[in-house]
């Protein structure tokens, strides 16, 4: 799960001297929200986001004369004037989990990926992570999800997996909701079958409780 396997490698970059208006056009054309700013030999010096650019734009409530003056000012502004210097970066040998936690902590939508000497190698964004997790969840393969309550103790998963395998059903993925209720976990196997009812029957025979699908959740906000 290393970053370099999931990052965008073909990165669109700008230089510190690029006019902000040109950077804005570039973002719109390429449908991207972050532009890494590099100097010679791809050394990263900053990052500029669509939000940085929007804040530099003139207010929409200006009068026509004010607007003309503002636009003149804008053509003179360069990326280096508004970019974030020393942005948070990530290395190609860090992992998707690192990126996920960092994004949650920094409230940032994308990180430049740089090597040890500071050269830009790629970008990893929320979009890349989502693609990876759509893949991990097996969402693009036909299947059906089950929800099972298990005791929070060793060996439960083996019983579940064995029971499903006995029915000759393959797995697309298995998710485990770590916290369910006191002493319980919830297991969500994604089964590659049109016929999950035989698996359900077998699990019930083994004494497992199947969750009402309307009660399923993977995460919910803490109770106040």
């Amino acid at each position: 799960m290393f970053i370099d396997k999931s990052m965008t490698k073909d990165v669109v970059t700008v230089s510190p001297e690029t006019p902000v208006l040109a950077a804005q056009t570039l973002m719109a054309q390429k449908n991207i929200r972050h532009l890494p700013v590099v100097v010679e030999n791809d050394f990263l010096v900053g990052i500029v986001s669509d939000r940085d650019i929007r804040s530099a734009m003139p207010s929409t409530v200006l009068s026509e004369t004010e607007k003309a003056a503002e636009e003149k000012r804008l053509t003179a502004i360069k990326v280096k004037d508004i970019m974030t210097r020393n942005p948070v970066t990530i290395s190609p040998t860090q992992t998707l989990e690192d990126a996920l936690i960092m994004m949650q902590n920094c409230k940032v939508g994308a990180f430049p990926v740089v090597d040890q000497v500071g050269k830009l190698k790629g970008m990893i964004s929320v979009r890349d992570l989502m693609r990876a997790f759509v893949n991990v969840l097996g969402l693009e393969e036909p299947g059906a999800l089950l929800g099972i309550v298990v005791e929070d103790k060793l060996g439960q998963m083996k019983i579940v997996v064995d029971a499903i395998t006995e029915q000759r059903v393959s797995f697309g993925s298995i998710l485990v909701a770590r916290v369910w209720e006191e002493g319980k976990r919830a297991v969500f196997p994604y089964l590659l079958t049109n016929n999950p009812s035989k698996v359900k029957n077998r699990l019930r025979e083994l004494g497992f409780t199947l969750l009402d699908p309307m009660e399923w959740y993977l995460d919910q906000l803490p109770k106040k």
Partner: protein
Amino acid sequence: MRRTGLLYDERFLLHKTGPGHPETPDRLIVLQRALEEAGLLPKLIPIPATPSKMKWIETVHAPKYIYRLEEACILDLGELDSADNQICPQTYETALLAVGGILNAIDMLMEGKIDNAFCAVRPPGHHAETNKALGFCYFNNVAIAARYLQVQWKVGRIGIVDFDVHHGNGTQHIFEEDSEVFYYSIHEHPSFAYPGTGREFEKGSGPGLGTTLNSTVLPGQGDEVYKEKIVQDLMPAFGEFKPEVILVSAGFDAHAEDDMSDTKLSTEGFSWMMQKVFQMAGQYSGGRIISVLEGGYSLAALPELITDHIRILLDLEHSD
């Protein structure tokens, strides 16, 4: 009363899926018995089952896949692509017969010999992709029927209504770029049911953007939600599209008693829905409906569900 055709052939029982498999020949045996007991058989016009020509199968499926299925049956490999798709040496011929019978129904419909038809076929079809067997399906019966209407009968606008509780991924994918085939499906929400496609934001692509429409129903929901979605989603869509022929992927597994799903549609709910399809066919399609059996696994519920379905096609309430 309408001239309703019935496609049924004992050879549809020859596709055997092995012990414990829900898609069993018994589904058709109980249906046949129910039609007899209800006295409906004399009212129905028999449609012969003959093997489809390869060129029609190839309007949907890749020749390599067709060959792979044939070979797997000859070699008696037991399954194709997944343990869901049990096969026996007769599966290939049975699947060809099912398609060929449906094409015969279309010929009779377009020649004016029947007004509509129900095709009690096995194996079902709507999960089958161009190059893959999926969810008990090998040839996509309804998709081939739509292609046949386009190619052989030059029909310009075809509407498909798929009320099997599982989304018809195969049919949707085959027509997602085709603006002349409108695919509508109502099914259990894909986060809770096989095959995990048919989300409400899937609306077709390219030139076919807007001629795919999915309505989803949550576990535990039944008649009320089905009625709401048919009225809000399907009826305005077909009102605008005005299909010249309506094909129905008639799956009966959304029924409360069917343990393949968590939806709770009642027998009356199914009839209500089919009445609406029948009315739309009257308004837009000259009454032309070809309904093709997909899923539905409760041997207790199926006989009544399908006899009611056929009664609607016959329009018995308006006997003349």
